[in-house]
C-alpha cells in the first residue's frame, strides 16, 4: 500500500492538523473533527453545515469559507460522521437564522445527520436538511435507499452558500439547495480501485484493461464492468446516462469534469475536451466549466461528470464571490 500517512487510525486527525496549518481562515478541531469558518457564527446568516466520510477531499472541509460552507464534519475514511460532530458544528455556526444540513444520500450520512438534527433542535437550533442524490448510475425507486449523492454536492454547497451569504432566510436557502440538486445529474467511471488506509487493500479488484461504469465515490461497484475505452467513449457513456435521465438539449449548463483522485489533470482535460464536444454536438450550451479533483475517492483513477441545468439566478449565485481552500474567486 503506497500511502503517505502515519498511523492508519490517525489519518483523519493528522490531515486536519495539516488543514489547520495551511488555512488560517479555518478553525479546526482535530480531536472533535470539526472544521469551522474562523468568523463563525455570523449573526443573522443561515449557517451551512455538511460532512461525510473522509477520502473525498477537498469535499467538504476544502469548501468551508466565505460564500460556501460554514462548517464541515469529516468522518472516518468513507464512513459518515457521528451525531456529536454534526451537533458541535451546527451549534458553532448558528447565528440565529438556523442551519442547513447538506447531506449526501447514503444511509449512514442520512441517519447520523437526522439524529444530529434532533439533538440540535433540542438546543433550539432550527435545522433544515437537503439530501443530495444526483448519481444516475443508481436506479431510483421509492422502495430503495435511492440515488447516491456525488458531484451535485459541490454545486449545492456553492450556490446555497452564495444565497446564504446574501442574507436569505433558511427556507429560501434550503429551497435553492433542493433546486440545484433537482437540476443536476452525475455519472462516474473508475479506471482503478482505491485503498482505504485502515483496510490496507483495494476495495475491489479490477484488471488493467477494465473499467467500472457508474462507480460510487466510495469505490462501491457500479452499473457494470466493461472493457476500458477511450476518453471519448467514457465521456459519451457518462453523458448519455445523464441525458437519458434529464434531457439536456437546448439548456444552458454548469459542467464539472471531476478527477477521482488518481487520474492526472492532463487526462482530466482530455476528458473535458471530449465532454465539451459531445455537449456542443447535442445542442447544449456550457456556461461554466470546472475541471479538477473536487469530489474524489482517495487515489481511484477515473472521472465523474456532473451537469447542472442553470437558470439565470443559479448562474448569478455560482458566479458570486467565494473564498475557500479549494474554490476561490471574486475576492
Amino acid at each position, binding site marked *: 500500500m503506497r500511502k503517505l500517512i502515519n498511523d492508519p487510525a490517525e489519518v483523519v486527525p493528522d490531515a486536519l492538523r495539516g488543514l489547520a496549518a495551511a488555512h488560517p481562515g479555518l478553525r479546526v478541531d482535530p480531536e472533535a473533527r470539526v472544521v469551522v469558518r474562523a468568523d463563525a457564527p455570523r449573526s443573522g446568516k443561515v449557517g451551512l453545515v455538511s460532512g461525510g*466520510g473522509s477520502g473525498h477531499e477537498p469535499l467538504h472541509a476544502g469548501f468551508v469559507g466565505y460564500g460556501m460552507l460554514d462548517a464541515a464534519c469529516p*468522518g*472516518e475514511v*468513507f*464512513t*459518515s*460522521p*457521528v*451525531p*456529536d460532530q454534526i451537533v458541535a458544528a451546527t451549534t458553532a455556526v448558528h447565528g440565529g437564522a438556523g442551519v442547513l444540513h447538506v447531506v449526501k444520500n*447514503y*444511509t*449512514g450520512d442520512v*441517519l*447520523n445527520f*437526522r*439524529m444530529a438534527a434532533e439533538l440540535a433542535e433540542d438546543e433550539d437550533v432550527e435545522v433544515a436538511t437537503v439530501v443530495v442524490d444526483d448519481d444516475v*448510475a*443508481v*436506479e431510483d*425507486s421509492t*422502495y*430503495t*435507499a435511492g440515488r*447516491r449523492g456525488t458531484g451535485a454536492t459541490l454545486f449545492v454547497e456553492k450556490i446555497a452558500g452564495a444565497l446564504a451569504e446574501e442574507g436569505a432566510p433558511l427556507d429560501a436557502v434550503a429551497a435553492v439547495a433542493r433546486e440545484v440538486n433537482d437540476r443536476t445529474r452525475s455519472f462516474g467511471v473508475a479506471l482503478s480501485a482505491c485503498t*482505504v488506509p*485502515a*483496510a490496507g487493500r483495494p*476495495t*475491489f479488484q479490477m484488471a488493467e484493461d477494465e473499467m467500472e461504469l457508474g462507480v*460510487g465515490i*466510495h*469505490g*462501491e*461497484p457500479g452499473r457494470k464492468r466493461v472493457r476500458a475505452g477511450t476518453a471519448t467513449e467514457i465521456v459519451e457513456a457518462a453523458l448519455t446516462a445523464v441525458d437519458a435521465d434529464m434531457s439536456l438539449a437546448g439548456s444552458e449548463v454548469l459542467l464539472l469534469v471531476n478527477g477521482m483522485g488518481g487520474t492526472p489533470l492532463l487526462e482530466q482535460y482530455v476528458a473535458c475536451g471530449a465532454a465539451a464536444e459531445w455537449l456542443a454536438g447535442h445542442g447544449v450550451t456550457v456556461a461554466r466549466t470546472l475541471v479538477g479533483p473536487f469530489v474524489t475517492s482517495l487515489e481511484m483513477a477515473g472521472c465523474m461528470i456532473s451537469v447542472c441545468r442553470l437558470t439565470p439566478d443559479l448562474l448569478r449565485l455560482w458566479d458570486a464571490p467565494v473564498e475557500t481552500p479549494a474554490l476561490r474567486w471574486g475576492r
Partner: protein
Amino acid sequence: MNGADFSAWIRRAAELVTADAERLTTLDAAIGDGDHGHNMARGFAAAVAAVDELPEDVVPGRVLVAAGRAIVSKTGGASGPLYGTALRRAGKALGDVADVDVTGLAGALQAALDGVRELGKAVEGDKTMVDALAPAVAAYEAAVENGADLATAMQAAVDAGETGLEATAPLEARKGRASYLGPRSVGHLDPGAASTVLVLLALLDVARGEG
C-alpha cells in the same frame, strides 16, 4: 438478569464482533464499502468503555441506554445509529427494574426491533439486519409463550437469526449501500444481519452463564 449481566452482554458482543471484524468487512466489501467490521468493533469498544464507567449496582436499562448512546456517538455509518438506537430503545423499555425476567427481555428485544424499523424504514426482505433481528425476536417470544427459560428462548432466537441471515443471500438489497448494486447484490450475505447474529449470540452466552 441484573445490570452486571447486561454489562457482560455488551462486553461479550464487543469480543465477538472484534474477533469476526475481518469477516464482516469482507462481506461489506462485496456489496458495500468494506468497513462494517471496523465500524462494529469501534462502536462496541466505545460501548464497553461507557459501561465500565457505570456504578456496580446500575439497573439493566441504564446499561443499555449508555451502551446505545456510546455506539451512536462513536460508530458512524449506517450501523452506528441503528445499533445505538436498538440498544437505547431496549434500555428505555426496561425502565428501572433491577432484575429482568424472560418476559421483560421480550419487551426489550421488541423495542429494539421497532427502533431499527422506525429509523431505517427497512422491512423484512430488504436484505438488512432486520432480516436477522425480526425472526429472532419472533422466535424468542414464541419460545417464551411455550414456557421456555431464558437460555432456551435465546437459543431459539439465535437459530432463527442465523436462518434469517442465510436467507439474505438470494435477496436483492433495497436499503443501505448494497441497494446501489441492484441485482448485483444477489448471492451475498448481508453484513449487518451477520453482525446481528453475533450480538444475539453474545446474549445467549450470557444467558447460559458463559458470558
